[in-house]
């Protein structure tokens, strides 16, 4: 256990940037969990006297056009970022993994399913998400579904590729020829080997979910306007950028640093991954 | 004896501090002579030849010794630097005919490219056709327009030889050029190399792990083990009476056409990896004639009357110790 920890520490030391990224992600999680304790003001406390205050004094990051404390909103924004990330990753895995595995196991079904995935992939990703928003309506949950649909396709493709390769492995073939049931092959051979490619995919999906959600918020088609999400904060700051450029800075930095950290961690996971699957899991 | 065209002495190639892949290799090649360099795979043959060409991969460097081509020191110079300084010419044919040619360029372009570098006077297309004739590729005009994937392995290796000859080399290095080919094609390519060596008066360093090929082709032999040479000599006496126990062991592994015994001998144990080599003779752990002295200090080179050199305390013509 200690040896494991030591080797992990050494790996981190060799990638200082990745370590910083991981630390930042921990910070995001902490501020999401302890938001009420960290934030000095309620995120929606309006204070018309103190509108558009520059950073400093009681307002660490200044205030917005309603006089709401930017720092508090940034802290609460971590909650939404986490919700979106976890939601999109869960949805894309929960739908993409079964589709990919089933397609690999049953080639005829696979041809149909993968064809459908191809069709979905022929839509530029944001248009696909926008189309779903039109059908479902605006909202946090619907944004998760819409972005999740984009990554359903890529996840299913990757899982399909990895599962096909695993199915052709000699030991899996041998198990099958000796009469091992499909369920047994899936749970014993395919899923356990899938964990590391899926972790890589999950971290990239988590990163891009942040960018996708921010774009939807910005277009006014994501989280409802009163929700303190980083994307909404940017959208609201838009008309004040010349007067209050700090409003643009903080939420934007949070989105960038979160996505960048997740990409660093994803790269690190990919470099550690079984080289057999490296060409399947590509951005 | 004519002056050697290529002279390598005490060459050391390292992949890092205290990590020597080639440890003090020396040999000479005369014009028109084929030196066969044999040894098990992983013993450092390719690294020796790449060092001589100035083509070592990044992370691996020459850390000692000298390499002279026609008397000028060319060590640590990459091929294009050798061209710039007007040093003598050397060319190389690699082991993998499938991957050694650029897949998106026509054969003709790849040959002409070499002609342009080395032979300013020649007309590249005419010279390319001439080179294909030299390596016995029929229908040259047509083949020059072909892409590598349209040719067989044997043909591609002939193209590689043509590219090598484009620079009119004084020395040709061939690193296991026939290992990837099947037997009949292998024989044709070997014949071609012998013929070109004689007609162009080139020195050839022919690398292989196959003693049988060396016996057919080479004039002289150098046997390599764990990064160092263990025995050198003219081909006929060396095959008749190997002096180093390792050479003898290798020969015992060859199928004997006069024997009915289908079982092949093997040398017990395996060769040490570059970082496992300790003091003394690297073959000591596997040698049947080993004695205490073999495990200590450097092993001297001894010669017999026919000039056959062996790095061994107890060469085979002497009595074995009790």
């Amino acid at each position: 256990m200690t040896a494991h920890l030591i080797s992990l520490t050494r790996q981190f030391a060799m990638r200082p940037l990745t370590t910083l990224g991981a630390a930042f992600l921990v910070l995001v999680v902490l501020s999401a969990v302890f938001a009420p304790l960290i934030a000095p003001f309620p995120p929606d406390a309006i204070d018309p006297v103190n509108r558009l205050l520059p950073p400093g004094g009681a307002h660490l990051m200044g205030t917005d056009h309603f006089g709401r404390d930017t720092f508090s909103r940034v802290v609460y924004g971590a909650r939404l970022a986490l919700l979106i990330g976890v939601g999109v990753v869960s949805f894309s895995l929960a739908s993409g993994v079964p589709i990919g595995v089933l397609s690999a196991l049953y080639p005829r079904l696979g041809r149909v399913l993968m064809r459908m995935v191809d069709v979905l992939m022929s839509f530029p990703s944001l248009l696909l998400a926008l189309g779903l928003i039109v059908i479902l309506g605006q909202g946090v949950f619907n944004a998760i579904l819409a972005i999740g649909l984009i990554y359903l396709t890529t996840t299913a493709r990757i899982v399909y590729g990895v599962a096909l390769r695993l199915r052709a492995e000699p030991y899996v073939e041998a198990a099958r020829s000796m009469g091992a049931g499909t369920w047994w092959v899936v749970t014993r051979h395919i899923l356990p080997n899938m964990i590391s490619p899926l972790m890589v995919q999950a971290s990239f999906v988590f990163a891009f979910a942040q960018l996708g959600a921010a774009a939807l918020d910005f277009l006014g088609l994501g989280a409802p306007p009163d929700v303190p999400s980083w994307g909404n904060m940017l959208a609201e700051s838009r008309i004040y950028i010349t007067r209050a450029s700090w409003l643009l800075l903080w939420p934007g930095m949070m989105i960038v640093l979160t996505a960048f950290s997740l990409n660093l961690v994803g790269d690190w996971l990919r470099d550690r991954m079984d080289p057999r699957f490296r060409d399947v899991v590509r951005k | 004896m004519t002056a050697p065209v290529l002279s390598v002495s005490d060459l050391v190639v390292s992949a890092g501090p205290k990590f020597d892949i080639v440890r003090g290799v020396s040999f000479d090649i005369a014009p028109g002579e084929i030196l066969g360099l044999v040894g098990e795979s992983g013993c450092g043959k390719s690294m020796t030849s790449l060092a001589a060409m100035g083509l070592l991969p990044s992370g691996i460097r020459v850390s000692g010794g000298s390499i002279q081509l026609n008397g000028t020191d060319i060590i640590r110079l990459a091929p294009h630097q050798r061209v710039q300084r007007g040093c003598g010419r050397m060319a190389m044919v690699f082991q993998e005919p499938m991957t050694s040619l650029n897949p998106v360029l026509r054969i003709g372009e790849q040959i002409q490219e070499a002609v342009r570098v080395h032979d300013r006077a020649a007309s590249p297309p005419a010279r390319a056709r001439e080179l294909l004739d030299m390596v016995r590729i029929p229908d040259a005009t047509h083949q020059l327009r072909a892409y590598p994937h349209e040719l067989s392995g044997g043909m591609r290796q002939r193209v590689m030889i043509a590219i090598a000859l484009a620079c009119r080399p004084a020395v040709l290095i061939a690193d296991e050029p026939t290992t990837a080919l099947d037997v009949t094609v292998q024989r044709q390519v070997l014949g071609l190399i012998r013929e070109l060596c004689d007609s162009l008066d080139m020195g050839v360093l022919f690398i292989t792990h196959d003693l049988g090929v060396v016996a057919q082709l080479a004039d002289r032999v150098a046997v390599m083990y764990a990064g160092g040479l263990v025995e050198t000599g003219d081909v006929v006496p060396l095959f008749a009476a190997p002096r180093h126990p390792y050479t003898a062991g290798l020969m015992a592994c060859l199928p004997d056409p006069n024997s009915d015994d289908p079982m092949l001998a093997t040398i017990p144990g395996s060769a040490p990896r570059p970082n496992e080599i300790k003091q003394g003779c690297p073959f000591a752990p596997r040698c049947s004639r080993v004695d205490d002295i073999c495990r200590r200090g450097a092993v001297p080179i001894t010669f017999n009357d026919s000039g056959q050199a062996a790095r061994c305390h107890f060469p085979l013509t002497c009595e074995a110790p009790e």
Partner: protein
Amino acid sequence: MFRYVIRRTGAAILTLVAASIVIFGFIHMIPGDPVYVMLGDGATPEQVAALRTRLGLDEPLVLQYLIWAGNALQGDLGQSVFFETPVTQVIADGAETSILLATMTMVWIVGFGIPVGVLAAIRQGRWIDQGLSGLAMLLASVPTFWVGLYLILIFAAGLGWFPSSGFPSIFDEGGLSNLRYLILPSIALAAPNAALILRLTRASMLDVAREDYVRTARAKGIKPYRVVTRHILRNALLAVVSAFGFTFAALISEAVVTETVFALPGVGRTVVQSILRRDYPVIQGVILVIVCLYLVINLLVDLSYRMLDPRVELE
């Protein structure tokens, strides 16, 4: 090759048909009566009935699809509910902006992404490579609209070098100099995609540099510069070319956002506004055209990739 073209084109057409069914079905998946949604609460029953008939919503579903698809094939994508003009007209109005924006963005992507990727690869491991690779990953993590807002803040509002929004046609007063309206948007749009192409170019250059034939080229005595341009770059670009279909898709997605940031009268902003206006025929029409374009571009990329690589010629 010919048979491949036929097969590949057939597959693209099949995908297009399937995609068109999805696009058509989309209006029927909207909960409630789309006609009411489109017209709002104040609509009279006559207006509703008229729109229903105009959209053909009273016919059986299969027939509706066939009529819609048939019309689309003849270049008729229906009427915009908001503008009351043909959808094709609405698309044509935005086309100039979007095409010029995409072209300019491609110029940045190819002009910066590839050379800088090559530079990073030949300086592999040095500080310049580490800096550029880190920057590329950072850029790939930045929302385009955020880059856009900062560009406006600095270069339009602050320094006043470029206009901050809008785009008058290059056929109007100002002519080609109107292109300056597209400089900031195209830079914002190019940033993440150029970063992607940079990373891809660098990675495939390094892959190719390890190939045996590169060693053969060096053995010939060719100068390192020529080895890079003639042997490494040429083969590495094959992989980069094959990524351009994907880049185009990413570009369209992000153009929707960028056109909104810079208030450009392009097709992307039309989509967003049509969603907010619930102008479903326009949404359907635009998406159909974009998917069609995307499939054609993917087809062309695929075919040119095969043309550039002689190895697949025989298949």
